[in-house]
């Protein structure tokens, strides 16, 4: 009781100084909370991008190598299954499997895998690895359709046409919890059933369904095969999902050009580790098992995500963190100096207390109590400032976006402009994608606890400096100063 009374009265006597110290700590704490909240918001945004790319439950993704753009074979022949378009003063010619014809007015389409194939046996090998809980194969395909104008290739004719691309994902219907559909929400229809593993059925993305005016029961054509739409799904906002999902077995049976997959091949493996701590080990094991394929984890994928979300993450992690640390150090130093100064002014008081029998420890506890009380006030105000800072960031922060690198490669078309300089167009693979990411700074209980701990630590540090001075104080000296 006496301790509290003395502490309260002393703080009231030094009200201005106490407020100054508490505010100094509060600004530091507020900045830490704000930066942590912004950083958590950015991390959450990044995580939402990554989880949508990965799907819930997927820890590691294995993809086949990126295919290189198709090149004419020696002697000017087109690679098997490849298509070459050449222009001449008399018009454009399409050569496919050695057969050439005038391109003008023609529509050609080609289904290509986004990555080189991985044998199905390798999916089983991955599933058997230590620390792997589950593994499922997937087949990412792109269908490119291109229609050449009638005057294409002629002098003064139309420019090379832009292909329409349809991204198709073959999903393992036996592993619904793994892979691209695990993170999607069904808006109408139903998901794949075990009985539909070899049926010509499709689930379409809601965006593609809207643009193509598709409903459950509609039909779409992929590689000349008609598929019935059985469901429509919506993926998280931050993703750029495939347009169509079809059963893996059906996807494997489609014709896929010169980079075509054989029966049972996949080009993606979705892997779940037994625990988060095992992810690096799983990544290492798979890299050893499949040295030519690309093994990515959320962490490695995060390093490839660029755009303003990455810049914001960098800003929060670098500038924000160091700014908060600097302000905290300044606040700690200020609190320490002011406490030392207060102790210096109270030398007579402490000397008297020592003279009447107070142990140094008792005086130190009293001074520490005062400093910690200022720290607690600083923590409360600082957390409030942090919430305000987070709210301001939420209101004024520009919209973030994530630039996700495409799969690259996979080209099967080549074109050459009739006017001379070669123009190479790669069709296939996926282009870089820019995804809008909402930033919602979030303050967790952990951050609030950290803030309180930091403020109390600031008070303790300040109090310890003062205590060091008290411990060194000889009562006779202290009393002589009063006299």
């Amino acid at each position, binding site marked *: 009781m006496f301790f509290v009374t003395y502490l309260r009265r002393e703080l009231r006597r030094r009200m201005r100084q106490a407020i100054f110290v508490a505010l100094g700590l509060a600004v530091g704490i507020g900045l830490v909370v704000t930066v942590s909240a912004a950083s958590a918001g950015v991390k959450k945004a990044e995580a939402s991008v990554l989880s949508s790319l990965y799907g819930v439950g997927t820890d590691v993704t294995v993809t086949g190598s990126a295919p290189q753009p198709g090149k004419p074979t020696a002697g000017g022949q087109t690679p098997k299954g490849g298509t070459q378009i050449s222009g001449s003063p008399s018009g454009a010619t399409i050569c496919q499997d050695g057969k050439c014809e005038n391109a003008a007015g023609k529509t050609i389409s080609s289904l290509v895998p986004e990555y080189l194939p991985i044998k199905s046996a390798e999916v089983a090998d991955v599933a058997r690895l230590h620390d792997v809980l589950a593994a499922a194969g997937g087949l990412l395909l792109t269908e490119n359709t291109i229609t050449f104008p009638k005057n294409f290739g002629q002098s003064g004719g139309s420019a090379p046409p832009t292909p329409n691309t349809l991204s198709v994902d073959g999903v393992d219907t036996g592993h619904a919890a793994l892979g691209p559909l695990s993170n999607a929400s069904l808006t109408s229809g139903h998901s794949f059933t075990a009985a539909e593993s070899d049926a010509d059925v499709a689930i379409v993305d809601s965006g593609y369904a809207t643009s193509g005016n598709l409903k459950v029961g509609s039909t779409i054509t992929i590689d000349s095969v008609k598929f019935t739409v059985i469901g429509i799904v919506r993926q998280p906002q931050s993703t750029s999902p495939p347009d169509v999902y079809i059963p893996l077995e059906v996807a494997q049976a489609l014709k896929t050009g010169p980079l075509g997959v054989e029966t049972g091949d996949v080009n993606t493996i979705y892997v779940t580790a037994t625990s988060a701590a095992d992810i690096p080990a799983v990544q290492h094991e798979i890299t050893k098992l499949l040295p030519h394929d690309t093994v990515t984890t959320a962490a490695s994928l995060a390093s490839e995500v660029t755009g303003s979300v990455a810049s914001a993450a960098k800003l929060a992690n670098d500038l924000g963190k160091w700014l908060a640390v600097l302000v905290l150090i300044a606040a700690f130093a200020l609190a320490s100096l002011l406490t030392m100064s207060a102790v210096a002014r109270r030398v007579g008081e402490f000397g008297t207390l020592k003279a*009447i029998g*107070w142990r140094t420890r008792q005086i130190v506890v009293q001074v520490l109590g005062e400093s910690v009380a200022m720290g607690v006030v600083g923590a409360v105000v600082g957390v409030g400032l942090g919430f305000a800072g987070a709210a301001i960031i939420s209101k004024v922060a520009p919209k973030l976006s994530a630039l996700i690198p495409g799969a690259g490669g996979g080209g099967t078309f080549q074109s050459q402009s009739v006017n001379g300089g070669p123009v190479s167009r790669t069709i296939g693979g996926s282009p870089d994608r820019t995804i809008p990411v909402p930033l919602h700074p979030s303050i967790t209980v952990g951050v609030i606890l950290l803030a309180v701990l930091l403020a109390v630590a600031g008070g303790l540090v300040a109090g310890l400096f003062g205590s060091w001075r008290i411990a060194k104080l*000889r009562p*006779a000296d202290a009393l002589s100063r009063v*006299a």
Partner: protein
Amino acid sequence: MYKLTGVTKLYQKGRRTVPAVRDLDLVIEDGEWLAVQGRTGHGKSTLLNLLGGLDRPTEGTVELDGINLGALRETQLTRVRAESIGFIFQTFNLIPTLSAAENVEAALIPLSITAAARRARIAAALESVGLADRAAHLPSEMSGGQQQRTAIARALVKEPTVLLADEPTGNLDEDTRDDIIALLERLWRDRGLTLVLVTHDTSVARRAQRAGVMSKGHLTIKQDNRPGPRPESHAVTAAHDPAT
């Protein structure tokens, strides 16, 4: 009983060594009132600090009831101060943010006393110095005399055997001075305290049983009104005034 033997206290001031007390032999009986006079800087306060265990002698021993204070560890010395020695200062040294009762209570904090006993002791101490009705007043709300009375209550609340007063009337007017000295005299008598009082005031010193003057670190006894025969060893002083 205090017994000082060959006590010297030196201070280092820059490169100079300044003797504050020199080769002092002194015995102070239990229940004795000793007044110490002397000019500023001649060692009066240093002597009081040595008696109160606030400082340690450079040479010699200061014994209180047979315990060599200079040989005690700091915690033991603090314990002696907390239990056995009361201090009164010229500037009162009250804690400005605490009331009279809380200032008195501060002296009981180092002791293990129950809250009820503590309250009773505080009330009794304030009553004994005539400040029962001022318990809730802050030092700034009291006169100098009342502040010194509070300081006396703080010194006595722990029921010490020794009371050390360093110019307790130095900041007070004559009437208040007389009141305070009368109060100290009454308390000294009633409680059988050993009182060592440093003062510049000869009229105050005359009321003590024994009075001496500190000069250049030496104590010379000028007055001895103690009743009854005194053993030779108990009248030892560092330097006897040739005039006495």
